[in-house]
C-alpha cells in the first residue's frame, strides 16, 4: 500500500498568499510603522557623536549594575567604534529594542492569562513549542512575502522567534508566587487586579525580568539572521562577510554582536535583582532609611 502524499506546505503557502492578498493595506501599514520606529531609534542613537552615546551607555551600566560593568561597557563600546562597526551596531540595537518591546507587550499579558487559566495555558503551550523549535530561517520566508525586503520582515521574524520565553517565564513568575502571600491579598479583600499589581507582578519580577532578558537575547540573535532579508545593521555586515568569505569583517561584525549581547544581558539581568550594589539600588536604600517611619 502507499501512503498518500500530504503536502501541508502547499496549504500554508496558499494561506500566506491569501493573507498577503487580503490584508495588503494592513501589512503595508505595519511595515511602514515598524520601519519608522526602527529608523527613528537608530537615528536617535546615531545623531550625537558616538563617544557621547558610549558614555551614556556606561553611565546606564553604572546606574543599574556596578562599576566593573560600567568599565566593561566603556571599553567594549569604544572597541565597536574603533572597528568602525558603530553605525550597523546601533541599527541592530534599534531593531532589537523595537522587536523586544513589541514581543514583551504581547508576551507579558499572554503569560498572565496563561497563569490564571489552566485551559489557556494548555492551548498556548504547544503553540509556543512550535514557535520556539521551528528553525529560525523558516520565518524569514513568509515575512518577506508579507513585507518584502527590509527592516519590517526582520522585526516581525524577530518578534515571533523571541516571544515564547517571555510568555513562559511570565506564566512561571506568576504561578510561583507564594500561595499564602496571594491568599493574604485575597483575604484582605483585594480584587484580582490589585493582587496582580500589588503582589504577583512585584514578587514575580525577578523571573519576569529573566524572561525579558531571554527575549532580548533571542531578539539579538534573530536580528543578525534577519540580515538575510535586508534588515540592515550587523546582520548585513555578517551576511556580506559570508558571501565574500571576508574573515576580517566577519570577525569584527561578530565581535560587535557579542559585545552588544553581553551589554544587554547584564543590563537587563541586573534590573530584576532585589539586592544589587548598583548606584540606583544604593540610592533607593538610602532614601528609605531617611524617610520617616510610615
Amino acid at each position, binding site marked *: 500500500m502507499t501512503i498518500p502524499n500530504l503536502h501541508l506546505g502547499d496549504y500554508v503557502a496558499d494561506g500566506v498568499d491569501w493573507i498577503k492578498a487580503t490584508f495588503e493595506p494592513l501589512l503595508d501599514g505595519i511595515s511602514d510603522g515598524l520601519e519608522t520606529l526602527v529608523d527613528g531609534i537608530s537615528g536617535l542613537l546615531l545623531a550625537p557623536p558616538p563617544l557621547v552615546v558610549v558614555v551614556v551607555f556606561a553611565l546606564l551600566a553604572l546606574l543599574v549594575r556596578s562599576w566593573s560593568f560600567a568599565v566593561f561597557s566603556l571599553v567594549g563600546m569604544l572597541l565597536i567604534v574603533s572597528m568602525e562597526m558603530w553605525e550597523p551596531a546601533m541599527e541592530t540595537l534599534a531593531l532589537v529594542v523595537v522587536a523586544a518591546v513589541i514581543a514583551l507587550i504581547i508576551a507579558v499579558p499572554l503569560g498572565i492569562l496563561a497563569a490564571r487559566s489552566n485551559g489557556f495555558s494548555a492551548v498556548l503551550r504547544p503553540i509556543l513549542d512550535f514557535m520556539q523549535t521551528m528553525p529560525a530561517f523558516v520565518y524569514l520566508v513568509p515575512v518577506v512575502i508579507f513585507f518584502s525586503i527590509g527592516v519590517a520582515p526582520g522585526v516581525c521574524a524577530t518578534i515571533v522567534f523571541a516571544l515564547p520565553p517571555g510568555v513562559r517565564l511570565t506564566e512561571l513568575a506568576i504561578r510561583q508566587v507564594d500561595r*499564602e*502571600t496571594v*491568599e*493574604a491579598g485575597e483575604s*484582605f*479583600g483585594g*480584587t484580582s487586579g490589585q493582587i496582580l499589581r500589588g503582589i504577583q507582578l512585584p*514578587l514575580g519580577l525577578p523571573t519576569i525580568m529573566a524572561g525579558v532578558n531571554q527575549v532580548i537575547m533571542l531578539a539579538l540573535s534573530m536580528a543578525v539572521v534577519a540580515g538575510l532579508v535586508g534588515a540592515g545593521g550587523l546582520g548585513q555586515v555578517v551576511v556580506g562577510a559570508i558571501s565574500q568569505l571576508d574573515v576580517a569583517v566577519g570577525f569584527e561584525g561578530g565581535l560587535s554582536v557579542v559585545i552588544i549581547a553581553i551589554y544587554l544581558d547584564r543590563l537587563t539581568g541586573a534590573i530584576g535583582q532585589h539586592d544589587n550594589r548598583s548606584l540606583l539600588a544604593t540610592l533607593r536604600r538610602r532614601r528609605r532609611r531617611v524617610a520617616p*517611619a*510610615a
Partner: protein
Amino acid sequence: MLEEGADRATLRKEGLTAAVIDATFDVAPGEIFVVMGLSGSGKSTLIRTVNGLLEPTAGSISIDGQDVTHLSKAGLREVRRTKVSMVFQHFALLPHRTVGENAAYPLQLRGVNKAEREQRAEEALGMVGLAGWGGSLPSELSGGMRQRVGLARALAAGTDVLLMDEAFSALDPLIRKEMQDQLLELQSELGKTILFITHDLNEAMRLGDRIAMMRDGRIVQVGTAEQILNEPANDYVAQFVADVDRSRVLTASAVMERPAAVIGVESGPKAAHKLMREHQVPALLVTGRNRRLEGVVWEDDVANAVKQGADKLPQSGEGAIRVTPDTPLIELLGDAASSRAPLAVVDENDRLLGVIPRVTLLSALSVPDGENGDAGEAAEPASAGTGDSDTVLDTAGAN
C-alpha cells in the same frame, strides 16, 4: 456519600479527598476559639472556608448573622474587607514593601487615603510592640517580629473577626510563648473574635476559651481546655491529651472542692474540735460574714484552747494561703508544699469559693483513668466566654 456516613478512607478509593466533613460550631463574640488537629485533619481547609478562600461543597458559614457561603465575588470581598482578617503561618508579608506599608496593606486595598492608613498602621504596629519599625523591610526583621507585622496588618484592618492559621507554628518555642502572651494581652484589651488554628495542644490550651478537636475532617469534641482534659469524648482525644502538662492547663477553680472543713469565726474551740474529728483534718478554715475568709485554726491550738477552757478560736499566725480561681495548678504546688493547711480559693472580695487539699491537687495532676476520677468530678463546668446567644461566627456541616 459522606452524608451517608462514609469516611475519608472510603472516599479516597474514589480518588477524592474530603478535607472537612462535619464541622459545626459557633464562635461567640470576644472569644478565642481554637481548632486543634494534626496536619491533614482539615483545619487549614476549615479556616479557609470561613473567609471564602475555599468554597465548601455543602453546609454554610455565617459571620455576624450573614451567610458568606453563597456571596458574589464582590460581596465576599466586602466581607473580607470589613469583617474578617487573617494571620498566616508563614506571615505572607510583601517583601518589597516596608513594615509600615505591609501593615497598611488592607487599608490600601480598601482605598483608604494615605495619611489615614499610615496613621492606623502605625497604631497597629504600636499595639504589637513594633512602634518605630515602619520604615524597615520585612527581611530585616526576625521571625517573631515578622509575625507581629502580620498581626498588626490584621489589626490595622480593624475587623472584629480574626482568623489565625497556625500563626505561631513557624516560630521558635520561646518566641511562640511570647507571642501567645502578647495575643492574650491584646485580646484582653481589644476583645476580638478569634478563630485560631493550631496543631500544638499546649498552645490550644493556653489560648483557647474553647477548643474544637479535629480528626480526619471531623470535629470530635468541642469544649474548654478543662473539659477536654478531664472529659475526653473518645479515646483519640484522651490519647492526645495524655501528654499535656495538666498543671499548666488546669486551674484552681477546676479542681477545688466544696469547702467542708470550715468554721464560722464566732464558733468556740469545742465546736472546732468536733468538726476536726468529724472530717479528720488537722486544720479548719475560718470564715466571717459573707463567707469572707478570716484565717485558719490548727488542731494543736484548738486542743490547747479546749483544755484551757477558752471561748475564742485560737487563730494561727500562719494564715491560710489564698489563691484566685484562675491560678494554674503549677503555681499552687509550691504553696501546697510549704503549708500544711488546705489552699483556700477566694474571689476578689476575699470570699471563700472552695478549698484544694493536697490529695486533690495530686490526683488532679494524674490522668483520669477511672481509678482516680476525683479531678473529673471536682471539675466545675467552666463557663468562661461561652455566651451562646449572639453568635458571631458559626459554621455548619461543611463537606
